[in-house]
């Protein structure tokens, strides 16, 4: 009888063995590898590992989880992904969700979990660490770091003075074809939601239509927008503040700078924040992790580390690299209301910003 799949299965077996060997030897490729820190001696109470669903990028935050394990002996397992997709996953998983903590890139996603009663109220000692503007009024979630909206501009063609102080100036005809934005991006949509809350539906619609009349350059996300500004496809772009530092790290001559927009809705400070799941059976350890993220050490590091240069949210800790939140004077927006993205999506669709 003719043997079936013979030459191929030999190769497949070889491949599978190779893969297993590589997997076993390769271990974790985490750039900030500290996985063995707590593994060497058995702790008194090994406990269950904490499960984190992190919409924050591994490259930005994995060091914090490693440090936590080293400090407390509590193992942390992290599933990284897109903030919104992970929030949806938690909603679909229901009470059986393996996640103990959800770490989100923006307040809206945390608000969506809160709206479906999936988060517990955090203990007061945690909430007290953070300015009330940067946590849920209900206490269901808290910000860990702040991320400011800015205008990134091409330094070859513009000086900081020439860049407007308000996003409302960008609808002026002189900016025709010179402004980049990323209307499908979550941070952008959070900013539009904030504008709807502070300035109302009509003003926001008018602003969007004014922007569209100026023929903006469309990017798919912040990274693409900053790159596009550097190439000169757009002279300024509405983005988050921190992408710039990554580009500068890889290319010190990078021709883009940020303009902060103090007091303007365009200078919204959103948060990256955490909530503990009501379905978690490991909530005490989860609270420990939240305390650790809000501890002086981690907060200081977030303000210094160029990979993740964000605004510390704990009183008395300031970033040497960034202006203080007082200097930015962000608009007062109840971040928990950023959850109403459906309205923003509909508005963006109506004016044709998503075409």
């Amino acid at each position, binding site marked *: 009888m003719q043997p079936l799949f013979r030459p191929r299965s030999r190769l497949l077996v070889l491949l599978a063995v190779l893969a297993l060997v590589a997997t076993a030897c390769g271990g974790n490729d985490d750039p900030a590898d500290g996985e063995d820190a707590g593994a060497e001696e058995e702790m008194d109470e090994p406990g269950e590992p904490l499960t984190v669903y992190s919409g924050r990028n591994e490259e930005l935050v994995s060091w914090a989880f490693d440090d936590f394990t080293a400090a407390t002996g509590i193992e942390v397992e992290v599933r990284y992904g897109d903030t919104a997709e992970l929030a949806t996953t938690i909603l679909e998983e229901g009470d059986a969700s393996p996640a103990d903590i959800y770490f989100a890139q923006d307040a809206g996603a945390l608000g969506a979990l809160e709206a479906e009663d999936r988060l517990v109220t955090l203990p007061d000692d945690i909430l007290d660490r953070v300015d009330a503007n940067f946590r849920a009024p209900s206490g269901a979630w808290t910000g860990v770091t702040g991320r400011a909206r800015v205008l990134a501009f091409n330094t070859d063609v513009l000086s900081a003075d020439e860049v407007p102080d308000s996003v409302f100036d960008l609808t002026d005809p002189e900016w025709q074809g010179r402004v980049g934005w990323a209307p499908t991006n979550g941070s952008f949509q959070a900013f539009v939601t904030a504008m709807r809350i502070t300035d109302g539906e009509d003003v926001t619609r008018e602003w969007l239509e004014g922007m569209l009349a100026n023929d903006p350059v469309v990017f798919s996300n912040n990274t693409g927008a900053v790159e596009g500004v550097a190439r000169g496809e757009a002279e300024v772009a509405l983005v988050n503040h921190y992408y710039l530092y990554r580009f500068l790290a*890889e290319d010190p001559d990078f021709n883009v700078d940020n303009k902060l927009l103090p007091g303007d809705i365009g200078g919204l400070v959103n948060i990256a924040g955490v909530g503990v799941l009501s379905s978690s059976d490991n909530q005490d350890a989860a609270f420990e992790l939240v305390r650790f993220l809000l501890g002086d050490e981690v907060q200081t590091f977030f303000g210094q580390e160029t990979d993740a240069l964000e605004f510390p949210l704990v009183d008395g800790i300031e970033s040497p690299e960034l202006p203080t939140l007082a200097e930015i004077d962000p608009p007062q927006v109840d971040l928990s209301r950023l959850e109403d993205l459906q309205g923003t999506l509909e508005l963006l669709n109506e004016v044709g910003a998503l075409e």
Partner: protein
Amino acid sequence: MRTLAGSPEPPAPADAPRGPRSAAGMHPLVWIPALVIGVAMLIPAIYLVIAASALPAGEIWEIVTDPSTARLTGRTLGLAAAVTGASVVLGVPIAWLTVRTDLPARRFLSIATALPLVIPTYVGAFTLVGALAPGGLVESWSGWRPPSPYGFGGAFVALTLFTFPYVLITVQSGLRGLDPSIEEASRSLGHGPISTFLRVTLPQLRPSAAAGALLVTLYVLSDFGAVSILRYSTFTRALYLQYRTAFDRAPAALLGLMLVAITVVFVVIEARVARDRGQQFGRRGAGRAVTQVPLKRWRWPAAALCWSVVLIGLVIPLTVVTYWLVRGLGAGESPNLAFGAAGRSLLVAALAAAAAVLAAVPVAIWSARSPSRWARLTERASFTGYALPGIVVALALVFVGIRLVPSLYQTLAMLIFAYVVLFLPQAIGAIRSSLLQVEGNVEAAARTLGSDRLTALRRVTLPLARRGAIAGGALVFLTVLKELPATLLLSPIGFDTLAVRVWSATEEAFFTRAAIPAMLLVVLGSVPLAITMIRERRET
């Protein structure tokens, strides 16, 4: 199938079909597993129905009749049709050139032209923008501004380059399965190589070209990466936006169901093209050496065609990635070697390829060899997972998995199952078209000569399926390498692959760290292609 209808009835009344009448003489070892697999493939569609049923009827009507829905559908269909047409125009000749001719560097080009397939579209599109956009690398290095990569044109070119290998690989496999004696007869009757290709070879390649074309069409329907970066709004882009910005899954589910409906239309069209053949040609050559067609003065133009595909689809992305690496290293950044992730990618891609082939064999045999309506429905059911965006399938399996099989939730087994749901049609299409190349009455002949059904299946049908199984396994392997949404949500926790590493780094502008994982993707992708090549050499 026309030829089967005319074939003599196998003389074995003793084992007439006892299952559904419609199983039509097929052994239960084929149709029972096939049915089970077909039902499993419907999980995403069932989930969408459940999720969309939360919508009140009025809202459903509103979404379905919204003019923007019609506009998006039109744009999506236009893009899918254009990319599919171009993929066939590109894929069929390149397949022939790399399998049958004396093209210079033929073996190398056979692998290199297929490799753009492993580049995730979000990376490929991003690198094309970095190279070709105004002020990009090409303009700053040469001073010449290439045509804009944005809009329909850019999405069309990028998706064609990154998906035409589906046609290329299935047609290459089809060509290797052809009986060369017919072409030789044509040549001896005075037809030149071009005329023989057009009049003899091409008609025989219809099933494989149609199968590959369908894979391209449905891939385009489900793509998010390229269209979002290249600024062309499609149905799937709208669906992703709905998932990513509003946490209400019901409207997104409805969009998903509409995408399933569009899929059905394409699947039916493919069936027409692949099955409506005027005549059936001979048998597969018994592993006989095929004489290479000399290209003569067409050698270098043909080579130029292949090389330009390699240039845009592979060299440009790899150059941009290399530029990231060099620039970053120069600035003191450290690269990310990602060998562990490479091992995990290899592991899941190989397991998924094997699982998909195993699952595809019964479905493909049943649908190729039985006129049964159930066989056709089963095959078509498998396309729903493939045409839906990855995030939809991933969320469906989250929803179903955690409720029905909590102990398997987010394990390797679950991940492999997700890949099978996503990519099974790639294996089915390739196997099915390799079976369709040979008339169904060879099995009947085996039975006339005294074999029972099982023996005929084992000794005749399965060996015929082998070539398609290899091509199909290669396709699944290549596609799994770049898969992202299901990997992120369903893998064992902490189990990252190369695609995850590339995504994670590029998303936050850590380009140096994305470089080596991206290069390793291409290296791993060449493995199954090289295996196909080695086999080909062994047989000739």
